């Protein structure tokens, strides 16, 4: 029963987003366009350490893409559904709450998979990126699963922010967090004071985890996974707090 409801819920979420150009175009097109420009057109054949820019930036713009898709899918959509009362209708229905959240995770991962697939095709076709099959798989898995902590962070934003402020907050979190973590420009090329800040950001750990699957990452994969898991727990806890807080309010 719950599995069936989760499936239906996921299908509805996918349909809902797919028909929403305001979501689809920025989340799908921006990472692809950025990668095509910075990773391929500008200096794709140059090298960063042992890898080409096209390979390196496949990992970092892949991370940039899934982070955006997760933050928007959770942050903005939950804030809207909560602020305008739709979440109340869901909560008054017999829908199991788990179905709502699992469906959002699955939807986010489906969009993440589309972004990663488009980037990989671009990289292989136009960037001359060649990886061992195991490395392709590891990179793709790291990016798609790596969306989850950012879904949790988005969820926290969605439950704490108002429906009108959520898109702005997501952008304020998303863009600096991507830049400072070296997702646009390699950490090595950033000014030293930024490079010192980077390890405090979850985006840095996803970027380095993804880079590690193809060679040039810093730190151990285990460390990155543990840090990202902690962010997931923190985001979910903040969201649960926000949900609880809503009950004590007359609004919404």
């Amino acid at each position: 029963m719950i599995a069936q409801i989760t499936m239906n819920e996921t299908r509805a979420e996918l349909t809902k987003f797919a028909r929403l150009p305001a979501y689809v175009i920025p989340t799908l097109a921006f990472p692809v366009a950025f990668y095509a420009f910075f990773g391929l057109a500008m200096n794709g054949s140059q090298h960063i350490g042992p890898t080409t820019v096209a390979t390196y930036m496949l990992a970092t713009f892949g991370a940039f893409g899934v982070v955006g898709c997760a933050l928007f899918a959770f942050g903005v959509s939950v804030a809207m559904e909560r602020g305008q009362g739709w979440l109340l209708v869901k909560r008054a229905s017999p829908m199991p709450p788990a179905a709502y959240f699992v469906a959002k995770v699955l939807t986010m991962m489906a969009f993440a998979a589309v972004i990663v697939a488009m980037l990989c095709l671009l990289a292989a076709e136009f960037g001359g990126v060649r990886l061992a099959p195991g490395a392709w798989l590891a990179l793709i898995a790291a990016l798609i699963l790596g969306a989850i902590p950012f879904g949790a962070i988005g969820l926290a934003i969605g439950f704490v922010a108002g429906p009108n402020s959520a898109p702005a907050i997501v952008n304020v979190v998303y863009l600096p967090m991507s830049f400072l973590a070296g997702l646009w420009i390699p950490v090595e090329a950033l000014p030293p004071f930024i490079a010192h800040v980077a390890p405090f950001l979850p985006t840095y750990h996803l970027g380095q985890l993804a880079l590690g699957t193809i060679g040039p990452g810093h730190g151990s994969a285990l460390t990155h996974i543990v840090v990202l898991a902690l962010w997931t727990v923190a985001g979910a806890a903040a969201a649960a707090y926000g949900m609880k807080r809503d009950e004590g309010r007359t609004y919404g």
Partner: protein
Amino acid sequence: MHDTQIPARLSRVTKRYGAITALNDVDVALQPGETLALLGPNGAGKTTAIRTLLGIIAPDSGTATLFGKTPRRAANRTRVGAMLQVSGVPATLTVREHVRLFSSYYPRPLPIADTLAIAGLRGLENRLYGQLSGGQKQRVAFALAICGDPDALVLDEPTTALDVESRLALWAQIRGYVARGRSVLLTTHDLAEADALASRIMVLFGGTIVAEGTAAQIKSRAGGSTVRCTSGLDDERLCALAGIETVQRADGVIRLTTHDANAVVRALYAVDPTFTLLDVAQTPLEEAFLALTRTPASQEVPA
């Protein structure tokens, strides 16, 4: 009656938001087969009562039950359909997609075609929600409430902001639902709506139930007139006159509430040579609710 047969019940429920007491020791029990209206002005606690009943919020004290079980668990809400006052229904799903999804939450939903027919949505099933008119959107909300073929409906201000035609259509749908032996609990701030739909009315004001009865009983208590006048009689003499329910004074003007303005005015002309009638008006509902919360004695209104 055993509690598992009571579709929806609040027992001694108190709910506070900070310093505001939204519900104060409220008892409401929806009986099987009846249509119960919770009538009250905005801010009376109606929405809090509905949300507590549906398990969206937990009461500070007291209990809420649906067919004897806590509404806080999703599985206990399968026999109840709800219609809330919301605006954020996802715009990019079609009517059919919305109904199909909600139907899947229930163990024995109505066939989707039946739900669409009952809610008056035939011909609109492939329309995106965002493209519907206000009345059509409210019909979708009704469809989502009934699609699970629930034994009870809980409707929060179902016809607020609807035009007359849409309101009458929704009334007909609600009556059709009751005719199938189901129970309905609805909130409204409109006595006429409560009168049109409900077999029993509970008046909620300031977080407490201040009156209960049939529509006729509530109307006779709430739907009176206000006589504005000047008179040499003191409050005690006025209250003693037949038909006068409450007396208020402000700036030398006396306001009397009554259900028989003619008799009161005749009596006052007869006993008080200084009596001057200023005007007679239907008591606005807000004032009628206030009157219900008072004992029929004099109340000094600060100028």
